[in-house]
């Protein structure tokens, strides 16, 4: 199910332990700490591998997340806003990651710019509750989606390169 490079990426992302969602008060705080620890390590790994591709932050309750992701195509850097809510059923169900500015530009999206994940994602996530967290959703969900969809969007002319994207990204 998982290809070699993804397997390698996954092996360096710390797994989470606390099975708690945003309705679980104190346990959720514990889970949130694990989420941040896992994300920090994943971003650091990416930077070390010269593959820094996203930033995320949350509101103080950890229920709403937002950030940016970048994708490099033909030496040009394309940047997109990310946003999603943590559903009350997290971590049993994965968050629905959205790139709102691409809404309506590709069929591989649901309403509101929520990315359409591969058939492999859901079983993989379900088998790894509660060990998978947001960093895994990024690595297994958004990463592969960008790799397939962004070149297609560029080739179709659905998105064009904008100078200021680089300034924001750097």
């Amino acid at each position, binding site marked *: 199910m998982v290809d070699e490079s993804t397997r390698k990426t996954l092996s360096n992302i710390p797994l989470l332990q606390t099975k708690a969602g945003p309705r679980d008060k104190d346990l959720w705080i514990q889970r949130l700490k694990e989420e941040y620890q896992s994300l920090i390590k994943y971003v650091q790994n990416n930077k070390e591998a010269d593959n820094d591709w996203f930033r995320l932050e949350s509101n103080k309750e950890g229920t709403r997340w937002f950030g940016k992701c970048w994708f490099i195509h033909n030496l040009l850097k394309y940047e997109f806003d990310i946003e999603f809510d943590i559903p009350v059923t997290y971590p049993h169900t994965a968050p629905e990651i959205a790139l709102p500015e691409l809404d309506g530009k590709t*069929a591989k999206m649901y309403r509101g710019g929520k990315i359409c994940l591969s058939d492999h994602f859901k079983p993989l996530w379900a088998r790894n509750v509660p060990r998978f967290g947001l960093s895994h959703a990024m690595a297994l969900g958004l990463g592969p989606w960008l790799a397939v969809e962004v070149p297609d969007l560029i080739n179709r002319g659905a998105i064009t390169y904008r100078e200021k994207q680089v300034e924001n990204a750097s």
Partner: protein
Amino acid sequence: MATVEELKAKIVQLEMKLEAAQQKGPKRHKIDVMSSEVVDSNPYSRLMALKRMGIVDNYENIRNFTVAVVGVGGVGSVTAEMLTRCGIGRLLLFDYDKVELANMNRLFFQPHQAGLSKVAAAAETLRDINPDVDIKTYNYNITTVDNFQNFMDTISTESLIGGQVDLLLSCVDNFEARYAINTACNELNQCWIESGVSENAVSGHIQLVIPGETACFACAPPLVVASNIDEKTLKKDGVCAASLPTTMGVIAGLLVQNTLKYLLKFGQTSNYLGYSALTDFFPTMRLKPNPVCNDNYCKIRQKEFEARPKVIELVKEEEDEKPLHEDNDWGISLVDESANEPEAKTQMVDGISLEYSLSNDNDVPKSSKTAQDDVNLEDLIAQMKSI
């Protein structure tokens, strides 16, 4: 720029236009008591005829019931219309989406409603069809922390008599929302019927969930109805989902039919009923809850159910409704996953299988775990920001 006078004149003009538009044709007025009198002005005569024919004992009781419809899309809007025409007492409509022109391959909504919230547009049409139905709308996403409590409170207090709704119908189109409904219904001990149409548009299902008594949505991985399409030839590149008004209409019909049977206590209510459009096959089965379900409230409801005295069923179960064994291992995978092909599905009965198995996570390498020492959340947030 227009003067105030010009604008006032424009308003008068538009108000007259609006009034003219609203006066198109006769308007149906409220009716106090359902009558079985057969006259062309009685919208309930054909429904009340069900009593005379001995199909339903108590059709007029339909007015005492409150049904919540969650998701007012291709299935939910048609479901709400059927219940409205049947004269249901109160309808609670939940959805956070807007009507789009891309929805016009489905039933119910019309192009001029594009841009309106689905619940507002639906309520307007439904009140026109039958003003006797009390319609309440809730325009929010039930899966977020902010809205979920309001959703639970509404389900438990907004019936016609100020209590829990009589039945909740899930007409949502995604796993997350189904899971959220399941969580709420297990906590509230709320009976509900799950419905769904597959993303390839050629199969669907309904499933009655009575907490503790029948399997809940979290008891097993999602069930899929065989569509008799070779998975290898199914092309999903470039699209998320297809939809057909026909399949959605069939599922809405099955959903409301079972709702009527459940509420008015006639016939048999199916536990799980599938629909395979390409072969016109309707598999059925009964599903017991999983004793080790992930949902804690499901397990609590199971204990409560076991403790209750059982009503002995007089109707003999049909051969094809094989109850699943209590020790059914939900997680059996028939084929190893090394090949890069869609995984083999665990078959439940002929035509119904599990979407995936939960065992076998060999495909994920074991990596380190996050540390449990005394880290401070604020420090972590700051660290994340400063990378």
